[in-house]
């Protein structure tokens, strides 16, 4: 299939993932769902790096290395986010952003 061998396909895919992630961050109320949306944004960037690497880059390894690093960093981020979400749950007995509205002004 020709469409799978084109840079544009993957760029559009990444852009759609990015948009879904952004929408999720803004629209979802559950902290876990927001975390998943953030991961979608990171994955969109990762797809971009891999696509550019496959079709354009003179050195074929750079994009892959970046993707590996993003995976590791995103895992660390998820660990920190989940631990803070647990702290939120212990104090507020909920993981819904509507419960966390004490700071305003």
């Amino acid at each position, binding site marked *: 299939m020709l469409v799978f061998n084109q840079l544009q396909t993957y760029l559009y895919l*990444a852009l759609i993932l*990015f948009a879904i*992630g*952004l929408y999720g*961050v803004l629209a979802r109320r559950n*902290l876990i769902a*927001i*975390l998943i949306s*953030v991961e979608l*944004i*990171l994955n*969109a*960037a990762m797809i*971009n*790096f891999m*696509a*550019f690497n496959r079709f*354009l*880059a*003179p050195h074929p390894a*750079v*994009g892959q*290395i*970046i993707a590996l*690093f*993003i995976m590791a*960093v995103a895992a*660390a*981020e998820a660990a*920190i*986010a989940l631990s*803070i*979400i647990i*702290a*939120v749950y212990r*104090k*507020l007995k909920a993981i819904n952003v509507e419960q*966390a*509205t*004490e*700071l305003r*002004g």
Partner: protein
Amino acid sequence: MDMLLFGPELYFLLVALVLFCLSLKRQPHPRAVNTIAATLAGLGVLVALVCLFQRGDLFFQAYRVDLFSQIFKFALALGLFLVFMISRNLAGIEERLHPEFYLFLTTCTLGMMMLVSSVELLTIYVSLELSSYSLYILVPLRRGDDIDVEAGIKYLFIGAVSSGFMLFGLSYIFGATHSTYLVDIIPRMPQLLASPIGLVGVLLALAGFLFKLSVFPFHFWAPDVYQGGANQVVTFIATASKAAAVALVLRIAALGASAGYSFAQTLVILSIVSMTLGNLVAIIQKDLKRMLAYSSIAHAGYILMGVLAFSEAGYASAVYYALAYLIMNFTVFMVLNEVATDGRDLKIAELAGLYHRSPLLTLSLILGIFALAGVPPSIGFTGKLLLFTSAMNQGYFFLVLIGAVNGTISLYYYLKVVYAAYFLSGEGLPPIRLSWPTRLLNYGLCVSIIGFGVFPNFIVELARTAVRAVL
């Protein structure tokens, strides 16, 4: 010889290891831990000073040591040391977590030191995340009510989204230039910026650093984190982390320097909205830290004026202002820490009678506040003068006009603080006792606020030499 090039980073990595070992102890002795941490950080300032004039490349040119990076490393080490100095009475954080407080502040400093030296996209991303993650953990460490976790979760998610934006932007830059090295990217920028992909890439890439600097539209975290975090942690976020953000905004914005009108115009709008919004909302604040948060948004707008000039003078003035902001904002936060001995959030009205409780602290407060407001002959006035002049020389008359109007608006809420300290009576409040290191710190800060304001030449010349490497 290479050891000296990587000196400050190696040293702070070592300090982090020592502090990690301390954090393994079951019952740490808070005073002893503070003494150790402060001594180590003090030595770190000396190490950074020794390495100030190092120059060279490391790690396959991904890491550049030049005057620009070394100045910021010195500022970061100084910021860390100052924050440790005022952490002797760390009431806001549980005692068993004290070593972790020092540990994460050190790793954050380490991350930011690597950040200011990074000249490769992946290195920038990884070191930015090292410094951010440490701060994400530090904010919810505060003891007591629920606002700390709320602030922590807001900080984390806004930070994660903006770093996601940045990464997406970096991927476009990588795709369009086929390189991850800034050295290779900069020459290809002019043709790239004519196409939308390059412009979108650079603007998205800036997002991660605009978040750290709390520029509109990534400023939402600032007030909540300032109010919700422990006072010492907020002091660090408001001083050292701002300086590192300025360094990286300068490096990344240099990518767009050749774009001319459209790129500069975006920054002009961000700058205007940031300073106007920050100053107007700060007027109605009652909580001192929250007010300082909005003032930091306004100051981020001022600093952008120097960035968008894209000239040597503009960049140098932004560097000068970042260093000045570190000193003057720290002074105000130090007073806040000394007054709120139990680690609570301080209302502006609670400064009442400070003049009778501690004249020295009041002097520091008034100097810090006047410097933030830009009253001559303080360091803040000189910084603003340099920023406004550099923007004016590039023909941004309208921007400078709005900046000047904003400076006047900001006087109102800054003077409210001075009014509370001098003219409200605080009957029955005990005098504040200062230990001798705190006294020395007070004198030192007062002298540097006035001294570097009247004689700025040395720092300005240093900054000018430094930014030549970036532009």
